[in-house]
Protein backbone atom coordinates (compact mmCIF):
# COMPACT_ATOMS: atom_id res chain seq x y z
CA UNK A 1 0.00 0.00 0.00
CA UNK A 2 2.69 2.44 1.02
CA UNK A 3 4.65 1.56 -2.07
CA UNK A 4 1.74 2.21 -4.41
CA UNK A 5 1.05 5.47 -2.63
CA UNK A 6 4.62 6.67 -2.85
CA UNK A 7 4.86 5.87 -6.54
CA UNK A 8 1.58 7.52 -7.41
CA UNK A 9 1.70 10.29 -4.87
CA UNK A 10 1.35 13.16 -7.38
CA UNK A 11 -1.64 11.46 -8.97
CA UNK A 12 -3.29 11.07 -5.57
CA UNK A 13 -2.53 14.72 -4.85
CA UNK A 14 -4.11 15.71 -8.17
CA UNK A 15 -7.29 13.77 -7.36
CA UNK A 16 -7.42 15.28 -3.86
CA UNK A 17 -7.00 18.76 -5.34
CA UNK A 18 -9.78 18.06 -7.79
CA UNK A 19 -11.99 17.00 -4.89
CA UNK A 20 -11.17 20.21 -3.04
CA UNK A 21 -11.92 22.28 -6.13
CA UNK A 22 -15.27 20.61 -6.70
CA UNK A 23 -16.07 20.87 -2.98
CA UNK A 24 -15.49 24.63 -3.11
CA UNK A 25 -17.55 24.97 -6.27
CA UNK A 26 -20.42 23.03 -4.73
CA UNK A 27 -20.54 24.23 -1.14
CA UNK A 28 -19.07 27.74 -1.09
CA UNK A 29 -21.49 30.44 -2.13
CA UNK A 30 -18.97 33.29 -2.12
CA UNK A 31 -18.26 34.33 -5.70
CA UNK A 32 -14.54 34.96 -5.06
CA UNK A 33 -14.26 31.50 -3.58
CA UNK A 34 -15.87 30.07 -6.69
CA UNK A 35 -13.09 31.68 -8.72
CA UNK A 36 -10.58 30.08 -6.36
CA UNK A 37 -12.32 26.74 -6.79
CA UNK A 38 -11.92 26.95 -10.55
CA UNK A 39 -8.27 27.86 -10.14
CA UNK A 40 -7.71 24.85 -7.87
CA UNK A 41 -9.53 22.57 -10.32
CA UNK A 42 -7.29 23.90 -13.07
CA UNK A 43 -4.16 23.29 -11.00
CA UNK A 44 -5.25 19.76 -10.23
CA UNK A 45 -5.57 18.98 -13.93
CA UNK A 46 -2.19 20.63 -14.54
CA UNK A 47 -0.57 18.53 -11.81
CA UNK A 48 -2.14 15.40 -13.25
CA UNK A 49 -0.84 16.19 -16.73
CA UNK A 50 2.67 17.04 -15.59
CA UNK A 51 2.83 13.82 -13.60
CA UNK A 52 1.93 11.85 -16.69
CA UNK A 53 4.89 13.35 -18.52
CA UNK A 54 7.43 12.27 -15.91
CA UNK A 55 9.87 9.60 -17.07
CA UNK A 56 12.44 8.19 -14.66
CA UNK A 57 15.90 9.19 -15.86
CA UNK A 58 14.62 11.47 -18.60
CA UNK A 59 15.97 14.99 -18.87
CA UNK A 60 14.21 18.18 -19.82
CA UNK A 61 14.10 18.68 -23.60
CA UNK A 62 16.26 21.81 -23.70
CA UNK A 63 19.30 21.27 -25.87
CA UNK A 64 21.23 24.26 -24.56
CA UNK A 65 24.11 22.75 -22.62
CA UNK A 66 22.08 19.69 -21.79
CA UNK A 67 23.59 16.65 -20.06
CA UNK A 68 23.76 13.43 -22.04
CA UNK A 69 20.78 11.13 -21.73
CA UNK A 70 17.30 10.41 -23.07
CA UNK A 71 15.05 13.44 -23.35
CA UNK A 72 11.33 13.41 -22.64
CA UNK A 73 8.80 14.37 -25.29
CA UNK A 74 7.49 17.70 -23.99
CA UNK A 75 3.88 17.28 -25.07
CA UNK A 76 2.32 17.46 -21.60
CA UNK A 77 4.49 20.42 -20.70
CA UNK A 78 3.13 22.26 -23.71
CA UNK A 79 -0.41 21.30 -22.73
CA UNK A 80 0.08 22.53 -19.17
CA UNK A 81 1.54 25.84 -20.33
CA UNK A 82 -1.44 26.36 -22.62
CA UNK A 83 -3.81 25.52 -19.81
CA UNK A 84 -2.06 27.98 -17.48
CA UNK A 85 -2.47 30.75 -20.05
CA UNK A 86 -6.13 29.90 -20.46
CA UNK A 87 -6.60 29.79 -16.68
CA UNK A 88 -5.12 33.29 -16.37
CA UNK A 89 -7.55 34.64 -18.97
CA UNK A 90 -10.47 32.86 -17.33
CA UNK A 91 -9.67 34.15 -13.84
CA UNK A 92 -9.21 37.71 -15.06
CA UNK A 93 -12.55 37.61 -16.84
CA UNK A 94 -14.41 36.02 -13.92
CA UNK A 95 -12.94 38.49 -11.45
CA UNK A 96 -14.03 41.45 -13.53
CA UNK A 97 -17.51 39.96 -13.78
CA UNK A 98 -17.58 39.43 -10.01
CA UNK A 99 -16.70 43.08 -9.45
CA UNK A 100 -19.50 44.11 -11.79
CA UNK A 101 -21.98 41.81 -10.07
CA UNK A 102 -20.97 43.26 -6.71
CA UNK A 103 -21.50 46.78 -8.01
CA UNK A 104 -24.95 45.97 -9.33
CA UNK A 105 -26.28 43.85 -6.49
CA UNK A 106 -24.12 44.76 -3.52
CA UNK A 107 -23.56 41.14 -2.61
CA UNK A 108 -20.93 38.49 -3.21
CA UNK A 109 -23.21 35.62 -2.25
CA UNK A 110 -24.28 33.50 -5.20
CA UNK A 111 -27.68 33.04 -3.58
CA UNK A 112 -28.32 36.68 -2.74
CA UNK A 113 -26.90 38.18 -5.92
CA UNK A 114 -28.94 36.06 -8.31
CA UNK A 115 -31.66 37.76 -10.31
CA UNK A 116 -32.78 34.85 -12.44
CA UNK A 117 -34.36 31.61 -11.38
CA UNK A 118 -37.19 29.32 -12.40
Amino acid at each position, binding site marked *: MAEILSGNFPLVAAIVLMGIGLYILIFRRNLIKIVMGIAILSSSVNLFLVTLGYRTGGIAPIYTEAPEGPMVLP*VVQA*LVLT*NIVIAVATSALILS*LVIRIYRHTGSLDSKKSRR*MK*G
Partner: protein
Amino acid sequence: MATLIEHSSILIIAVPLLIAFLTPLIGMASKKARNVVVISSLAFVAFLVFTLARDVILNGIHIYTLGAMSPSLTIPEGIMRPVRIILEVDGVSVFMGIVVAIVSLVAVIYSLSAMKGETGQNKFYTLLLLMVGGTFGMVFTGDLFNLFVFLEITSISGAALIASRTRFADSQEGGFKYIVVSAVASLMVLFAISLLYAQYNLLNIGALAAAMQYTMLDRIALVILISAFAMKLGGVPMHMWLSDTYSVAPASITVLLITTSQASMYALMRMCFILYGVSLDLAVVGWIVIAIGILSMFIGVTMAVRQTDITRLIAYNCVCEAGFMLVGLGVGIAVLGDATVLRTYGTMAINGAIFHMINHALFEGLLFLVAGAIFYRIGTRDINQMGGLGHTMKLTAVFFLLGALASSGLPPFNGFASKILIYESVYQFNPILTIIGILVSIITLAVFVKAFFSAFTGPSLPKYEDVKEVPKTMIAAMTIFAVIIIIFGLFPGLVVDWIVRPATDALVNQASYIDAIRGAMP
Protein backbone atom coordinates in the same frame (compact mmCIF):
# COMPACT_ATOMS: atom_id res chain seq x y z
CA MET B 1 -8.20 27.68 -56.77
CA ALA B 2 -6.73 24.30 -55.94
CA THR B 3 -4.27 25.96 -53.57
CA LEU B 4 -7.11 27.85 -51.94
CA ILE B 5 -9.07 24.66 -51.36
CA GLU B 6 -5.96 22.95 -50.04
CA HIS B 7 -5.42 25.67 -47.46
CA SER B 8 -9.07 26.55 -46.89
CA SER B 9 -9.47 24.48 -43.71
CA ILE B 10 -6.89 26.59 -41.87
CA LEU B 11 -7.91 29.81 -43.60
CA ILE B 12 -11.45 29.41 -42.30
CA ILE B 13 -10.07 29.39 -38.74
CA ALA B 14 -7.27 31.90 -39.24
CA VAL B 15 -9.02 34.64 -41.20
CA PRO B 16 -11.52 35.45 -38.40
CA LEU B 17 -8.64 35.45 -35.90
CA LEU B 18 -6.59 37.78 -38.11
CA ILE B 19 -9.49 40.17 -38.67
CA ALA B 20 -10.34 39.98 -34.97
CA PHE B 21 -7.09 41.71 -34.06
CA LEU B 22 -7.27 44.02 -37.05
CA THR B 23 -10.68 45.45 -36.10
CA PRO B 24 -9.56 47.53 -33.07
CA LEU B 25 -6.89 49.19 -35.20
CA ILE B 26 -9.25 49.91 -38.09
CA GLY B 27 -12.06 50.86 -35.72
CA MET B 28 -9.96 53.64 -34.22
CA ALA B 29 -9.72 55.23 -37.65
CA SER B 30 -13.16 54.63 -39.07
CA LYS B 31 -16.22 52.74 -37.88
CA LYS B 32 -17.62 52.24 -41.34
CA ALA B 33 -14.41 50.68 -42.63
CA ARG B 34 -14.38 48.34 -39.63
CA ASN B 35 -17.92 47.16 -40.32
CA VAL B 36 -17.13 46.60 -43.99
CA VAL B 37 -13.98 44.64 -43.15
CA VAL B 38 -15.77 42.45 -40.61
CA ILE B 39 -18.67 41.62 -42.90
CA SER B 40 -16.54 41.04 -45.99
CA SER B 41 -14.13 38.79 -44.10
CA LEU B 42 -16.99 36.67 -42.80
CA ALA B 43 -18.49 36.53 -46.28
CA PHE B 44 -15.12 35.36 -47.60
CA VAL B 45 -15.00 32.72 -44.87
CA ALA B 46 -18.51 31.58 -45.81
CA PHE B 47 -17.39 31.29 -49.43
CA LEU B 48 -14.39 29.20 -48.34
CA VAL B 49 -16.63 26.97 -46.23
CA PHE B 50 -18.90 26.26 -49.16
CA THR B 51 -16.04 25.46 -51.54
CA LEU B 52 -14.42 23.26 -48.91
CA ALA B 53 -17.74 21.52 -48.27
CA ARG B 54 -18.16 20.77 -51.95
CA ASP B 55 -14.65 19.39 -52.17
CA VAL B 56 -14.93 17.28 -49.02
CA ILE B 57 -18.26 15.79 -50.03
CA LEU B 58 -16.99 14.97 -53.53
CA ASN B 59 -13.40 13.92 -52.79
CA GLY B 60 -13.31 12.74 -49.20
CA ILE B 61 -11.59 13.78 -45.99
CA HIS B 62 -9.19 16.73 -45.93
CA ILE B 63 -6.08 16.53 -43.75
CA TYR B 64 -4.06 19.64 -43.00
CA THR B 65 -0.90 19.58 -40.89
CA LEU B 66 0.15 22.81 -39.24
CA GLY B 67 3.80 23.82 -39.47
CA ALA B 68 5.18 20.94 -41.53
CA MET B 69 4.51 19.01 -44.68
CA SER B 70 3.88 15.73 -42.90
CA PRO B 71 2.17 14.91 -39.59
CA SER B 72 5.11 12.87 -38.34
CA LEU B 73 8.00 15.12 -39.36
CA THR B 74 10.03 15.49 -36.18
CA ILE B 75 13.59 15.99 -35.03
CA PRO B 76 14.94 13.53 -33.92
CA GLU B 77 13.27 11.25 -36.40
CA GLY B 78 11.53 8.04 -35.55
CA ILE B 79 8.42 9.17 -33.70
CA MET B 80 5.81 7.19 -35.59
CA ARG B 81 2.73 8.97 -34.39
CA PRO B 82 1.11 12.31 -35.16
CA VAL B 83 2.51 14.87 -32.73
CA ARG B 84 1.54 18.03 -34.57
CA ILE B 85 -1.74 19.88 -34.68
CA ILE B 86 -3.69 18.25 -37.48
CA LEU B 87 -6.95 19.50 -38.90
CA GLU B 88 -9.15 16.72 -40.16
CA VAL B 89 -12.22 17.87 -42.04
CA ASP B 90 -14.88 15.31 -42.90
CA GLY B 91 -18.59 15.43 -43.71
CA VAL B 92 -19.79 16.35 -40.21
CA SER B 93 -17.16 19.07 -39.89
CA VAL B 94 -18.18 20.80 -43.08
CA PHE B 95 -21.82 20.45 -42.13
CA MET B 96 -21.12 22.26 -38.87
CA GLY B 97 -18.95 24.71 -40.78
CA ILE B 98 -21.89 25.62 -42.99
CA VAL B 99 -24.09 26.20 -39.93
CA VAL B 100 -21.49 28.45 -38.29
CA ALA B 101 -20.79 30.35 -41.52
CA ILE B 102 -24.44 31.21 -42.14
CA VAL B 103 -25.19 32.09 -38.53
CA SER B 104 -22.09 34.21 -37.97
CA LEU B 105 -22.72 36.26 -41.09
CA VAL B 106 -26.30 36.92 -40.02
CA ALA B 107 -25.21 37.75 -36.47
CA VAL B 108 -22.77 40.38 -37.68
CA ILE B 109 -25.29 41.95 -40.03
CA TYR B 110 -27.79 42.08 -37.19
CA SER B 111 -25.40 43.64 -34.71
CA LEU B 112 -24.54 46.54 -37.06
CA SER B 113 -27.59 48.49 -35.94
CA ALA B 114 -28.52 46.51 -32.84
CA MET B 115 -25.24 47.35 -31.11
CA LYS B 116 -24.94 50.86 -32.51
CA GLY B 117 -25.54 52.67 -29.25
CA GLU B 118 -23.28 50.48 -27.12
CA THR B 119 -19.81 51.37 -25.87
CA GLY B 120 -16.70 49.38 -26.74
CA GLN B 121 -17.86 48.25 -30.15
CA ASN B 122 -14.32 47.58 -31.38
CA LYS B 123 -13.85 45.01 -28.65
CA PHE B 124 -17.30 43.63 -29.33
CA TYR B 125 -16.36 42.76 -32.90
CA THR B 126 -12.96 41.44 -31.83
CA LEU B 127 -14.58 39.04 -29.39
CA LEU B 128 -17.29 38.11 -31.86
CA LEU B 129 -14.73 37.16 -34.50
CA LEU B 130 -12.69 35.26 -31.90
CA MET B 131 -15.81 33.32 -31.00
CA VAL B 132 -16.53 32.53 -34.65
CA GLY B 133 -12.93 31.44 -35.22
CA GLY B 134 -13.03 29.31 -32.10
CA THR B 135 -16.23 27.59 -33.16
CA PHE B 136 -14.77 26.85 -36.60
CA GLY B 137 -11.70 25.48 -34.85
CA MET B 138 -13.79 23.21 -32.65
CA VAL B 139 -15.48 21.61 -35.61
CA PHE B 140 -12.44 21.35 -37.90
CA THR B 141 -9.74 20.10 -35.60
CA GLY B 142 -8.59 16.51 -35.50
CA ASP B 143 -6.77 16.87 -32.23
CA LEU B 144 -8.30 16.46 -28.78
CA PHE B 145 -6.23 19.10 -27.03
CA ASN B 146 -6.85 21.58 -29.80
CA LEU B 147 -10.54 20.91 -29.33
CA PHE B 148 -10.16 21.88 -25.67
CA VAL B 149 -8.30 25.08 -26.55
CA PHE B 150 -10.93 26.18 -29.03
CA LEU B 151 -13.65 25.24 -26.55
CA GLU B 152 -12.04 27.60 -24.04
CA ILE B 153 -11.64 30.35 -26.63
CA THR B 154 -15.34 30.23 -27.44
CA SER B 155 -16.24 30.08 -23.74
CA ILE B 156 -14.14 33.06 -22.72
CA SER B 157 -15.10 35.28 -25.63
CA GLY B 158 -18.71 34.16 -25.27
CA ALA B 159 -18.85 35.10 -21.60
CA ALA B 160 -17.29 38.49 -22.29
CA LEU B 161 -19.83 39.08 -25.05
CA ILE B 162 -22.79 38.02 -22.90
CA ALA B 163 -21.73 40.54 -20.26
CA SER B 164 -20.86 43.20 -22.84
CA ARG B 165 -23.87 45.37 -21.98
CA THR B 166 -22.50 46.38 -18.62
CA ARG B 167 -25.49 48.45 -17.53
CA PHE B 168 -27.68 45.37 -17.02
CA ALA B 169 -27.16 43.47 -13.78
CA ASP B 170 -28.61 40.25 -15.17
CA SER B 171 -26.18 40.30 -18.14
CA GLN B 172 -23.29 40.24 -15.69
CA GLU B 173 -24.87 37.36 -13.83
CA GLY B 174 -25.46 35.47 -17.07
CA GLY B 175 -21.86 35.97 -18.15
CA PHE B 176 -20.62 34.80 -14.77
CA LYS B 177 -22.72 31.66 -14.82
CA TYR B 178 -21.65 30.90 -18.38
CA ILE B 179 -17.95 31.20 -17.67
CA VAL B 180 -18.15 29.16 -14.45
CA VAL B 181 -20.08 26.36 -16.12
CA SER B 182 -17.84 26.44 -19.19
CA ALA B 183 -14.66 26.47 -17.15
CA VAL B 184 -15.77 23.45 -15.13
CA ALA B 185 -16.92 21.59 -18.23
CA SER B 186 -13.78 22.28 -20.22
CA LEU B 187 -11.45 21.48 -17.31
CA MET B 188 -13.21 18.15 -16.95
CA VAL B 189 -12.80 17.63 -20.71
CA LEU B 190 -9.09 18.27 -20.28
CA PHE B 191 -9.01 15.78 -17.41
CA ALA B 192 -10.65 13.17 -19.63
CA ILE B 193 -8.16 13.96 -22.40
CA SER B 194 -5.29 13.49 -19.96
CA LEU B 195 -6.75 10.12 -18.92
CA LEU B 196 -6.66 9.08 -22.57
CA TYR B 197 -3.17 10.49 -23.03
CA ALA B 198 -1.97 8.60 -19.97
CA GLN B 199 -2.72 5.29 -21.65
CA TYR B 200 -1.98 5.82 -25.30
CA ASN B 201 0.42 8.81 -25.44
CA LEU B 202 -1.72 10.15 -28.25
CA LEU B 203 -3.87 13.20 -28.74
CA ASN B 204 -4.96 12.76 -32.34
CA ILE B 205 -8.55 11.58 -32.55
CA GLY B 206 -8.01 9.23 -35.47
CA ALA B 207 -4.87 7.67 -34.00
CA LEU B 208 -6.56 7.33 -30.60
CA ALA B 209 -9.57 5.67 -32.19
CA ALA B 210 -7.28 3.11 -33.82
CA ALA B 211 -5.56 2.38 -30.51
CA MET B 212 -8.70 2.36 -28.35
CA GLN B 213 -8.79 -0.55 -25.89
CA TYR B 214 -11.86 0.51 -23.88
CA THR B 215 -10.30 -0.07 -20.48
CA MET B 216 -11.71 1.15 -17.18
CA LEU B 217 -9.98 4.53 -17.52
CA ASP B 218 -11.44 4.90 -20.99
CA ARG B 219 -14.89 4.36 -19.54
CA ILE B 220 -14.33 7.08 -16.96
CA ALA B 221 -13.02 9.40 -19.66
CA LEU B 222 -16.06 8.63 -21.82
CA VAL B 223 -18.47 9.42 -18.99
CA ILE B 224 -16.73 12.71 -18.22
CA LEU B 225 -16.65 13.67 -21.90
CA ILE B 226 -20.33 12.88 -22.38
CA SER B 227 -21.52 14.78 -19.33
CA ALA B 228 -19.21 17.75 -19.95
CA PHE B 229 -20.32 18.18 -23.54
CA ALA B 230 -23.93 17.52 -22.52
CA MET B 231 -23.58 20.37 -20.03
CA LYS B 232 -22.15 22.64 -22.73
CA LEU B 233 -25.03 21.88 -25.08
CA GLY B 234 -27.64 22.30 -22.37
CA GLY B 235 -28.97 18.82 -21.73
CA VAL B 236 -31.28 18.43 -18.74
CA PRO B 237 -30.49 18.39 -15.80
CA MET B 238 -27.44 20.52 -16.66
CA HIS B 239 -29.38 23.05 -18.68
CA MET B 240 -30.07 25.72 -16.08
CA TRP B 241 -27.19 27.94 -17.15
CA LEU B 242 -28.60 28.00 -20.67
CA SER B 243 -31.82 29.83 -19.86
CA ASP B 244 -29.96 32.28 -17.63
CA THR B 245 -27.42 32.99 -20.35
CA TYR B 246 -29.39 33.04 -23.57
CA SER B 247 -32.03 35.31 -22.13
CA VAL B 248 -29.66 38.13 -21.16
CA ALA B 249 -27.12 38.12 -24.01
CA PRO B 250 -27.50 40.53 -26.93
CA ALA B 251 -29.62 38.81 -29.58
CA SER B 252 -26.81 38.50 -32.12
CA ILE B 253 -24.63 36.82 -29.49
CA THR B 254 -27.38 34.42 -28.49
CA VAL B 255 -27.49 33.25 -32.08
CA LEU B 256 -23.76 32.55 -31.96
CA LEU B 257 -24.14 30.84 -28.58
CA ILE B 258 -26.54 28.43 -30.26
CA THR B 259 -23.81 27.49 -32.72
CA THR B 260 -21.30 26.94 -29.94
CA SER B 261 -23.81 24.66 -28.25
CA GLN B 262 -24.15 22.88 -31.57
CA ALA B 263 -20.39 22.61 -31.76
CA SER B 264 -20.46 20.93 -28.34
CA MET B 265 -23.03 18.52 -29.69
CA TYR B 266 -20.72 17.93 -32.64
CA ALA B 267 -17.93 17.18 -30.15
CA LEU B 268 -20.22 14.72 -28.36
CA MET B 269 -20.92 12.96 -31.66
CA ARG B 270 -17.23 12.96 -32.54
CA MET B 271 -16.37 11.34 -29.21
CA CYS B 272 -19.10 8.69 -29.31
CA PHE B 273 -19.04 7.75 -32.98
CA ILE B 274 -15.44 8.28 -34.03
CA LEU B 275 -13.22 8.21 -30.93
CA TYR B 276 -14.91 5.26 -29.21
CA GLY B 277 -16.93 3.88 -32.09
CA VAL B 278 -18.22 0.36 -31.86
CA SER B 279 -15.98 -0.51 -28.93
CA LEU B 280 -18.16 1.16 -26.30
CA ASP B 281 -21.21 -0.34 -24.60
CA LEU B 282 -23.49 0.89 -27.36
CA ALA B 283 -26.87 0.17 -25.83
CA VAL B 284 -25.99 1.63 -22.42
CA VAL B 285 -24.34 4.78 -23.73
CA GLY B 286 -27.12 5.17 -26.28
CA TRP B 287 -29.73 4.95 -23.55
CA ILE B 288 -27.86 7.44 -21.37
CA VAL B 289 -27.92 9.91 -24.27
CA ILE B 290 -31.57 9.12 -24.97
CA ALA B 291 -32.44 9.64 -21.29
CA ILE B 292 -30.77 13.07 -21.29
CA GLY B 293 -32.61 13.83 -24.53
CA ILE B 294 -36.04 12.80 -23.26
CA LEU B 295 -35.56 14.76 -20.05
CA SER B 296 -34.45 17.80 -22.08
CA MET B 297 -37.47 17.58 -24.33
CA PHE B 298 -39.97 17.26 -21.52
CA ILE B 299 -38.56 19.57 -18.86
CA GLY B 300 -37.47 22.11 -21.47
CA VAL B 301 -40.89 22.46 -22.97
CA THR B 302 -42.82 22.42 -19.70
CA MET B 303 -40.58 25.11 -18.30
CA ALA B 304 -40.97 27.11 -21.49
CA VAL B 305 -44.76 27.23 -21.14
CA ARG B 306 -44.37 28.82 -17.74
CA GLN B 307 -42.02 31.67 -18.68
CA THR B 308 -43.11 35.26 -18.99
CA ASP B 309 -39.74 36.52 -20.23
CA ILE B 310 -39.79 36.12 -24.00
CA THR B 311 -36.11 35.29 -24.52
CA ARG B 312 -36.14 32.93 -21.56
CA LEU B 313 -39.12 31.19 -23.10
CA ILE B 314 -37.24 30.70 -26.36
CA ALA B 315 -34.15 29.59 -24.41
CA TYR B 316 -36.11 26.81 -22.71
CA ASN B 317 -37.44 25.87 -26.12
CA CYS B 318 -33.80 25.53 -27.22
CA VAL B 319 -33.29 22.97 -24.45
CA CYS B 320 -36.31 21.10 -25.74
CA GLU B 321 -35.07 21.07 -29.35
CA ALA B 322 -31.64 19.89 -28.22
CA GLY B 323 -33.48 16.97 -26.66
CA PHE B 324 -34.81 15.93 -30.07
CA MET B 325 -31.28 15.82 -31.48
CA LEU B 326 -29.99 13.88 -28.49
CA VAL B 327 -32.75 11.29 -28.88
CA GLY B 328 -31.92 10.85 -32.56
CA LEU B 329 -28.22 10.55 -31.79
CA GLY B 330 -28.85 8.19 -28.88
CA VAL B 331 -30.82 5.84 -31.13
CA GLY B 332 -27.99 6.06 -33.63
CA ILE B 333 -25.43 5.13 -30.97
CA ALA B 334 -27.57 2.33 -29.58
CA VAL B 335 -27.86 0.55 -32.95
CA LEU B 336 -24.38 1.40 -34.23
CA GLY B 337 -23.09 -2.13 -33.83
CA ASP B 338 -25.82 -3.84 -35.84
CA ALA B 339 -25.30 -3.18 -39.53
CA THR B 340 -28.77 -4.22 -40.74
CA VAL B 341 -30.63 -2.26 -38.08
CA LEU B 342 -28.34 0.67 -38.72
CA ARG B 343 -29.30 0.56 -42.36
CA THR B 344 -33.04 0.23 -41.76
CA TYR B 345 -33.50 3.06 -39.29
CA GLY B 346 -30.24 3.92 -37.49
CA THR B 347 -28.82 6.19 -40.18
CA MET B 348 -32.25 7.73 -40.59
CA ALA B 349 -32.28 8.71 -36.91
CA ILE B 350 -28.83 10.25 -37.21
CA ASN B 351 -29.93 11.99 -40.42
CA GLY B 352 -32.86 13.48 -38.57
CA ALA B 353 -30.71 14.61 -35.66
CA ILE B 354 -28.13 16.24 -37.91
CA PHE B 355 -30.74 17.84 -40.14
CA HIS B 356 -32.45 19.13 -37.01
CA MET B 357 -29.19 20.77 -35.92
CA ILE B 358 -29.10 23.17 -38.86
CA ASN B 359 -32.86 23.72 -38.66
CA HIS B 360 -32.57 24.42 -34.96
CA ALA B 361 -29.86 27.01 -35.53
CA LEU B 362 -32.01 28.67 -38.18
CA PHE B 363 -35.39 28.90 -36.52
CA GLU B 364 -34.23 29.45 -32.96
CA GLY B 365 -31.86 32.04 -34.35
CA LEU B 366 -34.75 33.76 -36.09
CA LEU B 367 -36.84 33.69 -32.92
CA PHE B 368 -34.02 35.16 -30.83
CA LEU B 369 -33.44 37.89 -33.40
CA VAL B 370 -37.13 38.76 -33.29
CA ALA B 371 -37.07 38.84 -29.49
CA GLY B 372 -34.01 41.07 -29.74
CA ALA B 373 -35.87 43.34 -32.15
CA ILE B 374 -38.76 43.66 -29.70
CA PHE B 375 -36.32 44.46 -26.89
CA TYR B 376 -34.58 46.98 -29.16
CA ARG B 377 -37.82 48.86 -29.68
CA ILE B 378 -39.74 48.63 -26.42
CA GLY B 379 -36.92 47.94 -23.94
CA THR B 380 -38.54 45.07 -22.08
CA ARG B 381 -38.58 41.31 -22.38
CA ASP B 382 -41.62 40.80 -20.17
CA ILE B 383 -44.56 39.30 -22.07
CA ASN B 384 -47.00 40.86 -19.61
CA GLN B 385 -45.85 44.31 -20.67
CA MET B 386 -46.28 43.64 -24.38
CA GLY B 387 -49.32 43.72 -26.57
CA GLY B 388 -50.51 44.81 -29.98
CA LEU B 389 -47.03 45.08 -31.41
CA GLY B 390 -48.21 43.44 -34.64
CA HIS B 391 -49.97 46.67 -35.57
CA THR B 392 -46.69 48.50 -36.02
CA MET B 393 -44.03 45.79 -36.37
CA LYS B 394 -45.69 43.76 -39.10
CA LEU B 395 -42.60 42.13 -40.62
CA THR B 396 -41.23 41.19 -37.22
CA ALA B 397 -44.52 39.52 -36.36
CA VAL B 398 -44.43 37.51 -39.58
CA PHE B 399 -40.88 36.40 -38.84
CA PHE B 400 -41.84 35.33 -35.33
CA LEU B 401 -44.77 33.33 -36.65
CA LEU B 402 -42.50 31.67 -39.21
CA GLY B 403 -39.92 30.70 -36.61
CA ALA B 404 -42.58 29.52 -34.19
CA LEU B 405 -44.31 27.31 -36.74
CA ALA B 406 -41.00 25.83 -37.89
CA SER B 407 -39.96 25.20 -34.30
CA SER B 408 -43.17 23.42 -33.39
CA GLY B 409 -42.72 21.17 -36.39
CA LEU B 410 -45.70 22.20 -38.49
CA PRO B 411 -45.70 21.33 -42.16
CA PRO B 412 -44.44 22.54 -44.57
CA PHE B 413 -41.56 24.14 -42.65
CA ASN B 414 -38.11 22.69 -42.13
CA GLY B 415 -38.71 21.73 -38.50
CA PHE B 416 -41.33 19.26 -39.65
CA ALA B 417 -39.02 17.66 -42.20
CA SER B 418 -36.34 16.89 -39.62
CA LYS B 419 -38.76 15.96 -36.87
CA ILE B 420 -40.58 13.43 -39.07
CA LEU B 421 -37.24 11.73 -39.77
CA ILE B 422 -36.61 11.48 -36.02
CA TYR B 423 -40.18 10.36 -35.20
CA GLU B 424 -40.36 7.57 -37.71
CA SER B 425 -36.92 6.13 -37.15
CA VAL B 426 -37.22 6.36 -33.36
CA TYR B 427 -40.66 4.73 -33.58
CA GLN B 428 -39.06 1.58 -34.91
CA PHE B 429 -36.58 1.64 -32.04
CA ASN B 430 -39.05 2.39 -29.27
CA PRO B 431 -42.57 3.76 -29.91
CA ILE B 432 -42.86 5.50 -26.53
CA LEU B 433 -40.06 7.91 -27.45
CA THR B 434 -41.97 9.05 -30.53
CA ILE B 435 -45.16 9.53 -28.55
CA ILE B 436 -43.33 11.74 -26.06
CA GLY B 437 -41.77 13.62 -28.97
CA ILE B 438 -45.11 14.39 -30.60
CA LEU B 439 -46.59 15.45 -27.26
CA VAL B 440 -43.64 17.78 -26.72
CA SER B 441 -44.13 19.25 -30.20
CA ILE B 442 -47.73 20.02 -29.38
CA ILE B 443 -46.78 21.80 -26.16
CA THR B 444 -44.12 23.71 -28.14
CA LEU B 445 -46.88 25.04 -30.35
CA ALA B 446 -48.79 26.08 -27.23
CA VAL B 447 -45.69 27.91 -25.97
CA PHE B 448 -45.41 29.98 -29.11
CA VAL B 449 -49.13 30.60 -29.38
CA LYS B 450 -48.91 32.17 -25.94
CA ALA B 451 -45.86 34.23 -26.85
CA PHE B 452 -47.20 35.35 -30.22
CA PHE B 453 -50.66 36.29 -29.09
CA SER B 454 -49.61 38.19 -26.02
CA ALA B 455 -46.84 40.07 -27.82
CA PHE B 456 -48.17 40.81 -31.27
CA THR B 457 -51.95 40.61 -31.26
CA GLY B 458 -54.57 42.43 -29.26
CA PRO B 459 -55.50 46.11 -29.32
CA SER B 460 -52.56 48.42 -29.95
CA LEU B 461 -51.49 49.79 -26.60
CA PRO B 462 -51.18 53.57 -26.22
CA LYS B 463 -47.66 53.36 -24.77
CA TYR B 464 -46.41 51.50 -27.85
CA GLU B 465 -48.26 53.65 -30.38
CA ASP B 466 -45.07 55.29 -31.71
CA VAL B 467 -43.07 52.06 -31.90
CA LYS B 468 -41.59 51.72 -35.35
CA GLU B 469 -40.30 48.76 -37.34
CA VAL B 470 -36.65 47.93 -36.55
CA PRO B 471 -33.78 49.26 -38.74
CA LYS B 472 -33.16 47.79 -42.17
CA THR B 473 -30.05 45.76 -41.38
CA MET B 474 -31.87 43.93 -38.59
CA ILE B 475 -34.72 43.19 -40.98
CA ALA B 476 -32.18 41.99 -43.54
CA ALA B 477 -30.60 39.62 -41.03
CA MET B 478 -33.96 38.16 -40.10
CA THR B 479 -34.92 37.89 -43.77
CA ILE B 480 -31.86 35.75 -44.50
CA PHE B 481 -32.90 33.27 -41.82
CA ALA B 482 -36.53 33.33 -42.96
CA VAL B 483 -35.66 32.70 -46.59
CA ILE B 484 -33.38 29.80 -45.70
CA ILE B 485 -36.08 28.32 -43.46
CA ILE B 486 -38.60 28.44 -46.30
CA ILE B 487 -36.15 26.97 -48.81
CA PHE B 488 -35.21 24.17 -46.43
CA GLY B 489 -38.87 23.58 -45.78
CA LEU B 490 -39.74 23.29 -49.45
CA PHE B 491 -36.74 21.20 -50.52
CA PRO B 492 -35.77 19.06 -47.54
CA GLY B 493 -34.78 16.20 -49.83
CA LEU B 494 -32.08 18.23 -51.51
CA VAL B 495 -30.61 19.40 -48.21
CA VAL B 496 -30.60 15.86 -46.83
CA ASP B 497 -28.93 14.53 -49.97
CA TRP B 498 -26.33 17.27 -50.29
CA ILE B 499 -25.08 17.94 -46.80
CA VAL B 500 -26.84 15.77 -44.22
CA ARG B 501 -26.26 12.34 -45.68
CA PRO B 502 -22.50 12.87 -46.21
CA ALA B 503 -22.31 13.97 -42.57
CA THR B 504 -24.09 10.80 -41.41
CA ASP B 505 -21.90 8.63 -43.61
CA ALA B 506 -18.81 10.25 -42.11
CA LEU B 507 -20.11 9.63 -38.59
CA VAL B 508 -20.97 5.96 -38.92
CA ASN B 509 -17.83 5.19 -40.89
CA GLN B 510 -15.13 5.21 -38.24
CA ALA B 511 -12.67 3.28 -40.40
CA SER B 512 -12.42 5.95 -43.09
CA TYR B 513 -11.58 8.60 -40.48
CA ILE B 514 -8.80 6.41 -39.08
CA ASP B 515 -7.55 5.50 -42.54
CA ALA B 516 -7.34 9.14 -43.54
CA ILE B 517 -4.95 9.96 -40.71
CA ARG B 518 -3.01 6.75 -41.35
CA GLY B 519 -2.70 7.62 -45.01
CA ALA B 520 -1.20 10.99 -44.17
CA MET B 521 1.56 9.34 -42.14
CA PRO B 522 4.50 8.07 -44.18
